[in-house]
């Protein structure tokens, strides 16, 4: 079984452990063994070291990467921001002078960055290493007839020159759509597919601006797709969709019920038959109806004898 370093970040292990559990359930079943990166920290988030000092950012990021290097594994993130921060830090460390300076810092904690581990997002691992066919073979329930609006998020798309895996066209991303289609679901296009959900620094700096941007995107999803659910591969987007739809509803800014939102590996874990109380348990929006629909008897795929 291929091993990969499971880089957890902050939001997933601390606020959305059901997403972490969904990784741990689906990956071994699909032939990937997640290996813990013991002692890994925050990537560090954009609003921390990257906002103060480039080399401190690179030192904290590369400390995380050295944990994977010591185990001889690549790194897999579940959070788009972590993917962006770690990938950019690795890109900055291609500069020989910077690498020397950062390695001098790392020497004070007996570490050295070598650059031997590549950085992937879980969507990349599922799309490139596992593949749609193997996903289909492992489904217990078919999501045929369900309509999904996908939210790929920002930090796996741009800047494409620092990423190990790129979309063919980052302004028209297809990886998440194809992953969702592998479950049998329909994934209609909408015009604001690649636009920003407003989470992140924007939300902590000015929540009203963030909500306005979010509402534009959400309205586009509703009007153009009328989706049964929203699926994302970004844990920050997940939080925005899950916590801000009820706010818009309460303020009367949307005239429809909040659309249940799942992280992609949660959707897949449900379709593979895992227990919702472990893999899709933490949300503001009530997801019980869509979960029951996904795991309903009529969707059971007959076991191959």
């Amino acid at each position, binding site marked *: 079984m291929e091993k990969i370093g499971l880089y*957890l970040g*902050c*939001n997933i*292990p*601390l*606020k959305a*452990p*059901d997403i*972490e*559990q969904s990784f*741990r359930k689906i990956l071994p079943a699909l032939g990937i063994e997640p290996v813990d*990166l*013991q*002692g*890994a*920290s*925050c990537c*560090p*988030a*954009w*609003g*921390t*070291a*990257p*906002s*103060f*000092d*480039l*080399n*401190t950012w690179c*030192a*904290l990021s590369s*400390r995380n990467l050295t944990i994977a290097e010591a185990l001889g594994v690549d790194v897999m993130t579940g959070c788009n*921001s972590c993917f*962006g921060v770690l990938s950019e830090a690795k890109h900055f460390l291609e500069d020989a002078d910077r690498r020397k300076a950062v390695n001098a*810092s790392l020497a*004070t*904690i007996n*570490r050295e960055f070598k650059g031997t581990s590549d950085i992937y997002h879980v969507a990349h691992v599922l799309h490139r290493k596992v593949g749609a066919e193997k996903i289909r073979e492992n489904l217990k329930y078919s999501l045929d007839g369900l309509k999904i609006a996908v939210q790929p998020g*920002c*930090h796996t*798309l*741009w*800047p*494409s020159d620092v990423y190990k895996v790129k979309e063919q066209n*980052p302004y028209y991303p297809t990886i998440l759509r194809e992953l969702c289609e592998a479950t049998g679901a329909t994934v209609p296009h909408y015009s604001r597919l690649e636009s*920003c959900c*407003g989470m*992140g*620094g*924007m939300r*902590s*700096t*000015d929540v009203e*601006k963030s909500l*306005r*941007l979010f509402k534009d995107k959400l309205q586009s999803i509703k009007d153009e797709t009328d989706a049964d659910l929203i699926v994302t591969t970004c844990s920050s987007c997940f939080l925005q969709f899950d916590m801000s739809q009820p706010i818009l509803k309460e303020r009367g800014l949307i005239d429809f019920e909040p659309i249940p939102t799942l992280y992609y590996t949660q959707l897949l874990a449900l379709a593979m038959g895992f227990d919702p109380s*472990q*893999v899709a348990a*933490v949300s503001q929006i009530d997801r019980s109806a869509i979960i029951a629909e996904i795991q309903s008897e009529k969707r059971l795929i007959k076991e191959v004898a």
Partner: protein
Amino acid sequence: MIIDQQKIDEAVNTIIGYGGHGILNCVQCGACSAICPGVRAGFPLLCRNLIRHLLNGELEEIIEDSSSWGCQACNRCTEVCPRDVRPQEVVFAFRRYQANELAFSTSSITSQMNLYETGHAVYTDPRAARKRVGLPEETPTSAFDEQAKQEIQTLINNSPMGELGLF
């Protein structure tokens, strides 16, 4: 306003010093601003307009503006820029200038303290929620790893962040 070459040099050198190496490539075409979610949301000083102010020699004059902290770090601007300015790095360089002058919102201090104390910018005690979903209560991350926390504190203490007196 009077254009003062000395002030322009100071602003440009400050931005380059904080990592905005491509600022002088900018021809003010505005492709970055056209695609920037922060500009769309209404932050006045991002991408093209921030660069314009900096290239006019304004630095202290705009230090209190919070736009740079509204940057999503999404790098759409970097992708679209025809001149390899990497505008996000200019925005972040300006943010670093602000941060090192302690010109940032006090609300952001919490994440610096969280990072320093637990290794996580966002920290809430996860044990009950983790137990509920069938995971070990303690994460395999720095939050429950004393050596990891010491390493992170050592890196921060010996950095320019450590000299700001936040910790």
